């Protein structure tokens, strides 16, 4: 599994899911934009949401590809990002064999998930600590970028900066970096563990 990381695929189908009001679609848009404008790939984002302005199930599907994207919907995500338990339950069965699951550890009870690669972060809690609960999505995006490398850090940060409300750029970049750092730390921890383990085995 971990070997993959260095050689991360450049075509990715990402589903981000959560509640209305968490900024799921914005996260998807930043991701797509980073890929398309920053990393100069093709990318498409489709969203799905219900009649509720807040609290309803909501998802963003981002396809990142080197080739032109015909069909923008995702039946089997390579990467699934969950910010609600409902979203997790809905999509977890569809993830590809060697897919990646990322979730907010306070909002999702992902115990039973059978996914090869799993990352979690207390994004909402961290956002609350920053005093901006609605920046959980940006923290998550930082984390996502760090652990998946589906988009470049630079592209991601640039996309964050132009996508958030004027005046909040700095705070959002800070939130992004927080998520990012958490991701890098997680990776480091795992590498260590893996090395340790490998060491133990070899």
């Amino acid at each position: 599994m971990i070997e993959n990381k260095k050689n991360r695929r450049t075509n990715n189908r990402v589903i981000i899911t959560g509640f209305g009001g968490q900024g799921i679609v914005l996260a998807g848009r930043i991701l797509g934009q980073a890929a398309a404008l920053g990393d100069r790939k093709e990318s498409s984002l489709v969203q799905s949401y219900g009649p509720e302005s807040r609290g309803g199930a909501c998802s963003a599907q981002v396809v990142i590809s080197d080739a032109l994207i015909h069909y923008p919907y995702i039946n089997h995500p390579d990467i699934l990002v969950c910010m609600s338990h409902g979203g997790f339950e809905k999509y977890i069965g569809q993830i590809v064999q060697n897919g990646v699951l990322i979730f907010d550890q306070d909002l999702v009870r992902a115990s039973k998930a059978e996914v090869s690669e799993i990352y979690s972060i207390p994004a909402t809690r961290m956002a609350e600590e920053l005093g901006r609960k609605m920046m959980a999505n940006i923290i998550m995006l930082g984390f996502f970028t760090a652990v998946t490398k589906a988009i470049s850090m630079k592209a991601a940060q640039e996309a964050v900066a132009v996508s958030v409300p004027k005046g909040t750029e700095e705070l959002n970049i800070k939130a992004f970096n927080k998520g990012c750092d958490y991701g890098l730390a997680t990776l480091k921890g795992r590498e260590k563990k893996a090395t340790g383990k490998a060491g133990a085995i070899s």
Partner: protein
Amino acid sequence: MVQTNSRLQTKDPCHPLDDLIRTDRIPHIWCSGCGIGTAFSSCLTAIKSTGFDLKKFIMVSGIGCSGRAAGYVKLDSFHTTHGRAIPFATGIKLGNPELNVIVFSGDGDLFAIGGNHFIHAARRNMDITVICVNNLNYGMTGGQAAATTPYKAKSTTTTLGNPEDPFNLPLMAYASGATYVARWTMLHIRDLTDSIEEALSKKGFSFIEVLTPCPINYGRRNKEKPLDTLKLYQDNTIIKNGANPSEVDIDFEKGVILGKFVDEDRPTHGEKYDMIYRAVS
């Protein structure tokens, strides 16, 4: 899970209005802090208080967040098209005059696209009760300016401020011929409930405007947290029954006048039609 402060918990705790709501559809779609639920709940309490046969109450809504009310009330209920709740309700009332017809809908529904139906139903003194949830914007479509949005207020379509002046709804109702006109906020719940009950018990076209927060779309863009809005309702309102409708435009700086402004008796459309057209056998 149900919490209580009592050891004597009843076995099946049940909200006193559960018999009037479609509990299988709760929680409703309204956002946290949205005032529609409170206005709706007040309306249900008022319906109960009349003591009238519940089978004979009909709720009609248009389209909008407020318009979703019809989907939650456990009465015969109709969720129609945007703006057309009043003519639909008119058809119901004329089709079966025994029914008590309540229109519960939003300011955009009733006064933007639906404004013409409102003034004509009032003119006819159609025997229905119209409750307008005025949250100063189009909530459902994401917070565009409405015909009730204050001058210079922000919305997704008036990002620098609304260039238009809002309607004074009670004045419009009065000018059109409504025989009962009142305004409350969702914080003035007991007044509101009493007012709705009074309107339901009264013949003719009754209109009640209920100010409610839309924290997600209106509040957020105009720097009002839900509790800020409620504070405005508490601090910057003046109850003045019988106020001249032409003096009750909404201006929270001056203070918003609440109360019952019109309460007249005029023959209803049905009474006049019957008198003229059914007198001769």
